[in-house]
């Protein structure tokens, strides 16, 4: 069967199955198990209403449990076994990984990414949000800067390959270098700094996200606080840093953590641009070198990523619980 037909069929089965499940499970609950009639009608209605939330939740909980919760445990368990999966070797994979210099480079690079990308994307986002705030063509400017959000990491990497190309007839950077009388070079082969050139691609993509959210937050600041500051003689920089930024600090932190989480997942850019060569591996791309070859090592790398995400996860959950109170 052709994949297209299969796709249409899956949509029908998926949507039909969902509607059918919810409709019939509710009907069975109300009519068969706890019918709202007879001597115990009231009792039955209460019982049915206790069960119903779980009917509504079941498909989502099942999928979430199977596709996200189980893998956390499953991956950790798998990482304790060797390549074949038959021999338990405890933390052997982790010990071996930390013995590899390539892995240590990947960890170091990943820490760089986690420090630099969220900071720069938030900084540019805030800057542009503030500058475009009262601009007549601000919305067009914002829309254009937001655009890279829609582009895939692979597409973005190709776009930047044209910028970074070592050929001065293709790469604009080397065209500028040669016209200034310098020698053309491949930016992606410049050790250490090439990491930053790769990071800039992700900053380019994520700045729009930061800008949109921070721009909304800036608009939400009460006018009176700003007016009061201006009447008291604050200059524009003081208004921005002492009045506006403190009031949107919460949003800045949310943007920062959201981008941090993303940084820990993105393997596409490194994979497409350098394939991890020239000392540019980060953990997600390093994991892919073991994927399909050594599941034990691959899951061990994945679990190290999980450990890096853990503090953000805990912080997120605590924030969410505070809001609900």
């Amino acid at each position, binding site marked *: 069967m052709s994949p297209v037909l299969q796709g249409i069929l899956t949509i029908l089965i*998926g949507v039909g199955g969902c509607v059918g499940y919810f409709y019939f499970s509710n009907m069975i609950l109300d009519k068969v198990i706890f019918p709202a009639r007879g001597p115990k009608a009231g009792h039955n209605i209460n019982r049915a209403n206790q069960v119903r939330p779980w009917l509504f*939740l079941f498909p989502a909980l099942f999928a979430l449990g199977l596709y996200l919760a189980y893998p956390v445990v499953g991956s950790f368990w798998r990482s304790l076994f060797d390549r074949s999966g038959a021999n338990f070797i405890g933390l052997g994979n982790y010990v071996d990984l930390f013995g590899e210099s390539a892995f240590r480079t990947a960890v170091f690079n990943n820490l760089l990414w986690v420090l630099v990308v969220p900071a720069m994307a938030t900084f540019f986002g805030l800057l542009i949000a503030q500058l475009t705030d009262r601009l007549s063509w601000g919305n067009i400017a914002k829309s254009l800067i937001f655009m890279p959000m829609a582009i895939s990491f692979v*597409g973005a990497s190709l776009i930047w390959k044209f910028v970074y190309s070592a050929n001065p007839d293709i790469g604009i950077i080397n065209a500028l270098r040669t016209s200034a009388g310098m020698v053309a070079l491949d930016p992606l082969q410049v050790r250490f700094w090439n990491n930053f050139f790769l990071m800039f691609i992700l900053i380019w993509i994520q700045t729009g996200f930061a800008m949109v959210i921070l721009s909304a937050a800036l608009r939400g600041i009460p006018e009176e606080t700003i007016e009061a500051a201006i009447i008291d003689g604050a200059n524009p920089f003081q208004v921005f840093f002492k009045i506006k930024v403190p009031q949107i600090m919460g949003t800045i932190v*949310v943007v920062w953590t959201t981008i941090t989480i993303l940084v820990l997942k993105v393997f596409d850019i490194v*994979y497409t641009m350098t394939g991890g060569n020239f000392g540019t591996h980060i953990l997600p791309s390093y994991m892919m070198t073991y994927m399909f070859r050594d599941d034990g090592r691959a899951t061990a790398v994945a679990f190290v990523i999980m450990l890096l995400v853990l503090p953000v996860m805990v912080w997120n959950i605590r924030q969410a619980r505070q809001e609900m109170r």
Partner: protein
Amino acid sequence: MDNIAGQNKGGRLAVNITVLILVLLWLLPTVGLFVSSFRDRDQISNSGWWQAPLAVDLNFRTRIATEPVREENGSFILEGNVFADPGLRDRFPDGEGVVAAYGTRAVDPAEFAAGEVSDLRAGGTVVIERDGTYRIVTPEAIDRGPTLYFEARTPPRFTLANYQTVLFADGMDRAFINTLTVAIPATIIPILIAAFAAYALAWMDFPGRGLLIAAVVGLLVVPLQLALVPLLSLHTSVGIGQSFLGIWLAHTGFGLPLAVYLLRNYMVGLPRDIIEGAKVDGATDFQIFVRIILPLSFPALASFAIFQFLWTWNDLLVAKVFLPSGAASQVMTVKIADDLLGSRGGDWGILATAAFVSIAVPLLVFFTMQRYLVRGLLAGSVK
């Protein structure tokens, strides 16, 4: 009045210029890709895309015919015009052009300036004038015409040939359909599942609700990388293996936390009166959900659908792991990253076109539905 530098005219100008520079910086790389996709191979490798509207010096070769030959003072003379070569007709349709330099060896096609007389390797002399007329003088008649190389200024040329190659010859059409096949079911299926769960988490009272919401927030940040190995072996053991069904299920699972979180945040904000009024009138939860909540939540549903569509369309990781690697099921990102970058690494026109084809649909979705996208972002992050 509260802009950083908005109090005077100079400041206003500075803001305008700064924003303009930033916008250009953000836009230029994409423009470069777009322009490059319309240029042919020779043009791309001889001048940057920023010079695309200008004429370029390109190198050509021509094989000189041995006829008509003329004998004069014991020498044999061949005369003609290089632009008359039928092989170059598509470049110089009216048989005219300007020669900047020429050469007799392929390694140095611009060795001599136009009009300068040079020696032929086989004996004799050759010259090509600026207008393309050549004159070859040899001591003896030759039976094989020499090959000449020349550099001529050619007008800018834009072509759709790259698109033709990419769309019809390179298997990108297959990849395009595959991407669509992955993205659409993977966008639609999670919506309903998530909507029911979000309703339960927003409007039904049961023990453990707070804990479940916290769990969803936690799962929101679980790195995908963890899921790859255990799920692939699970899929293999139940017989799904690497297939479209597998990737639909995977995308559904991975998209659910965001869907539940977004939709719940939205549904909590719906007016309590409507829902309680419906309950008083005897509507069941199922009826309330289908008749009231679902239509009212349309903006949130649209936001999530756009997110999920962009995410599944742009995804490389899940496709690499959960789909078989053959050409029959390659999606565009995999095709570009694994196939084109390897086999056509130097063919920038093809790469640019393939990239542009793959980002065209997301860009279209982005520009037509930006409103919902922004609303979704705000609902998901600013709380």
